C-alpha cells in the first residue's frame, strides 16, 4: 500500500469511503510518523494516540453502518489555541500550566461532529504572538524545508508554525490554525502549504484562546486548495456563543475549486511592491499575473494608499486588545500561581513568570496605549486608520473581483535570525495584516521555489464573504504552477 500519510485529505476521504483502508490504518500510520519526526520538528506539543485510535475505531464503525460524516476517519492536528475537552490546552504559554478544558471550542466540535480524528495539539507562538514560532514555551518548531545544500534550521513561520510544519511533513492530513495578523498565511507560505483566513465572523471564536478579539479568525492549513475548502466548509458555522459570529449564507467552497476564472478582474496593488523585496518575490508575483492572464483574467493595476499604515495600526490594536484579554491570567482560577507578599505581588509575579518576553512586551504596549490620556491618540486613532484601510479595499473592489499579492516579503528565514529587532520580525506580516484589519478573506497558495529551493506563496484577497473567489483564483494558480514539491524527509 502507498504511504497513507502522503495523501491529500480529499484522496484520503475517497479511500476511506471506498474502504481501500480504514481510519484505524491511516491513524496508525500518522501516529508512527509523528513518533519518528516530532523530536526533530517539535510540531506537536501534545500527542493523543490513544484518543486518536479510539476515535478512528468509532469512525470505522460509523462508516460500516453507513453514517459517515464529511471528515469521517480523517486524522487532523489541532492548533493549541483551540480548547479541546480533556486535552491540555495552553496556547503554548507557561501561565496556563496544565490547563485542561472542560469544554470544546466550536471549531473543533464542528470537526468531531463530522467524524474527524484528533492526533494531538500543535505548537504555536505563545498566545499566537509571533511570526517564527520562537515564542512558544515548548520551544520552536522546525520547518521541514531546508535551503539547497544547507542544513541550517529554518522557521516554519508563525504563529501557526506547528500546524504548517505538521501538514508539510505529512504528520496530519490537515490542521486547524488561526490568523490575527497573518498567522495562517505566512506559515503556509513558508512551508509550501495552503492556508486561508476567512472573513471575520465566519468561524466562531468560542473556545479559541483570545489574543486580539477584533482580528482573531480561525482557518485551516492544508495540502491543497481543495483540502482547504473541505476543512473550511466544516470549521465555519453560525454560533450563538460568539456574538461576532456572522449569520450569513455559507456556500460549498469545494465547488469554487476548478471553476474557470475567465473574465475575472484581478487587482494588483502597487503599494505591495516594497523596497528591498527580493527579486524572487517580484518574479513570482509577475508569474502569477501571467498565469491568471493566460487563464483569461483581466489584470487591473490598483492602489491601496493606506497600506503602509496597516502594520503600525495593527501594533496598537492587537496589543491593546491583548492587554485587555490577557488580564484574566491572574493565577486565581486556573493556570500557574506564583507566591508574593500581598495580592498585587502575587498577580505581578504570576504574570512576570508566566508570560514570555514577547507577550510581556506586547502587554506593556497595550497597557500604555490604553492608559489614561492616550486612548484617543492611539487606540481610537488606529481604529479610524483601520476604517481608511477598509475604505481603500472597498473602493478597489468596486472595480475588481479579487487582489493578487505575494504572501510574504521573503522565504523562510533561519531560526534566531530576527531576534534582535522586534520591528524586523513584525514586517513579516506586511502583506497579510491588511486583510485582518479590514476583516477580509485571504488565502495563501504555494506556487514555486526560490533559488535556495524554498517554497514561496501568493496571496489572493477577496471581498467580504467572498471566500469563493479566493478559492477559485487560488485553485487556478495551483493548477497553472503545477506546484508539487515536498521537503525531503531528513527528519527520519
Amino acid at each position: 500500500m502507498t504511504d497513507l500519510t502522503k495523501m491529500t485529505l480529499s484522496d484520503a476521504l475517497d479511500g476511506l469511503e471506498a474502504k481501500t483502508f480504514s481510519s484505524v490504518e491511516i491513524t496508525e500510520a500518522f501516529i508512527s510518523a509523528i513518533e519518528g519526526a516530532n523530536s526533530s520538528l517539535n510540531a506537536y506539543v501534545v500527542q493523543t494516540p490513544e484518543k486518536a485510535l479510539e476515535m478512528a475505531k468509532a469512525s470505522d464503525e460509523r462508516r460500516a453502518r453507513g453514517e459517515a460524516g464529511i471528515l469521517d476517519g480523517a486524522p487532523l492536528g489541532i492548533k493549541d489555541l483551540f480548547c479541546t475537552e480533556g486535552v491540555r490546552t495552553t496556547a503554548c504559554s507557561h501561565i496556563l500550566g496544565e490547563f485542561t478544558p472542560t469544554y470544546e471550542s466550536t471549531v473543533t466540535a464542528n470537526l468531531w461532529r463530522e467524524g474527524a480524528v484528533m492526533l494531538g495539539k500543535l505548537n504555536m507562538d505563545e498566545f499566537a504572538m509571533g511570526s517564527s514560532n520562537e515564542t512558544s514555551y515548548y520551544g520552536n518548531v522546525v520547518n521541514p524545508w531546508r535551503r539547497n545544500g544547507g542544513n541550517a534550521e529554518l522557521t516554519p513561520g508563525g504563529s501557526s508554525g506547528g500546524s504548517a510544519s505538521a501538514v508539510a511533513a505529512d504528520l496530519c492530513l490537515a490542521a486547524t490554525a488561526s490568523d490575527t495578523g497573518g498567522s495562517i498565511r505566512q506559515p503556509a507560505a513558508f512551508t509550501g502549504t495552503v492556508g486561508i483566513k476567512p472573513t471575520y465572523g465566519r468561524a466562531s471564536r468560542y473556545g479559541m484562546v483570545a489574543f486580539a478579539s477584533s482580528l482573531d479568525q480561525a482557518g485551516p492549513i492544508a495540502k491543497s486548495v481543495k483540502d482547504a475548502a473541505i476543512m473550511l466548509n466544516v470549521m465555519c458555522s453560525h454560533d450563538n456563543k460568539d456574538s461576532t459570529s456572522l449569520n450569513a449564507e455559507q456556500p460549498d467552497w469545494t465547488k469554487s475549486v476548478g471553476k474557470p476564472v475567465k473574465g475575472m478582474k484581478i487587482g494588483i496593488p502597487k503599494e505591495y511592491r516594497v523596497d528591498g523585496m527580493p527579486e524572487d518575490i517580484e518574479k513570482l508575483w509577475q508569474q502569477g499575473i501571467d498565469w491568471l492572464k493566460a487563464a483569461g483574467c483581466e489584470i487591473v493595476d490598483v492602489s491601496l494608499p493606506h497600506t503602509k499604515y496597516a502594520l503600525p495600526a495593527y501594533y496598537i490594536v492587537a496589543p491593546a486588545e491583548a492587554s485587555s484579554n490577557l488580564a484574566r491570567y491572574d493565577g486565581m482560577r486556573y493556570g500557574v500561581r506564583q507566591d508574593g507578599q500581598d495580592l498585587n505581588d502575587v498577580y505581578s509575579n504570576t504574570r512576570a513568570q508566566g508570560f514570555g518576553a514577547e507577550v510581556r512586551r506586547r502587554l506593556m504596549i497595550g497597557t500604555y496605549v490604553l492608559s489614561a490620556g492616550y486612548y484617543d491618540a492611539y487606540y481610537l486613532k488606529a481604529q479610524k486608520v483601520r476604517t481608511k484601510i477598509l475604505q481603500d479595499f472597498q473602493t478597489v473592489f468596486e472595480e475588481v473581483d479579487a487582489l493578487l499579492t505575494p504572501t510574504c516579503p521573503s522565504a523562510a528565514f533561519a531560526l534566531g535570525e530576527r531576534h534582535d529587532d522586534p520591528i524586523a520580525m513584525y514586517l513579516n506580516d506586511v502583506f497579510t495584516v491588511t486583510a485582518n484589519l479590514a476583516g477580509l478573506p485571504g488565502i495563501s497558495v504555494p506556487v514555486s521555489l526560490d533559488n535556495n529551493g524554498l517554497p514561496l506563496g501568493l496571496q489572493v484577497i477577496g471581498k467580504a464573504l467572498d471566500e469563493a473567489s479566493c478559492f477559485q483564483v487560488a485553485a487556478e494558480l495551483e493548477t497553472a504552477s503545477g506546484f508539487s514539491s515536498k521537503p525531503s524527509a531528513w527528519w527520519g
Partner: protein
Amino acid sequence: MSVTNEDVKKVARLARIALPEDQVEPMTNELNGILNWIEQLGEVNVDGVEAMTSVVEASLPMREDVITDGNRQDEVLANAPRTEDGFFVVPKAVE
C-alpha cells in the same frame, strides 16, 4: 512623544507584570522603538472618519434574559491552583 523609565514602571504596575530594576531600561528602549515607529499614523488625516467596528454590517444579537447555563461548580473549579469546599482559595485581599 517618548516614554521614560518612570512611565515604564507605571505601565508595568498597571499591567500587573513585575519588572525587575535591571529590566526597566531595556524595556523603555524597546517600547520607544516600537512607539516611534507607530507615530507615523500621525500622518493620516482621520477627520470625520468613524472608528472601524466590523467589515460586514451586523448588529449585536439579542436573546431572552433567562438562565441558560450553570450548575457546573466542579467544571469551573477543575483547573484552579487551589480550592477548598467548592471555593477558589485566593490570597488574603482585605485586612
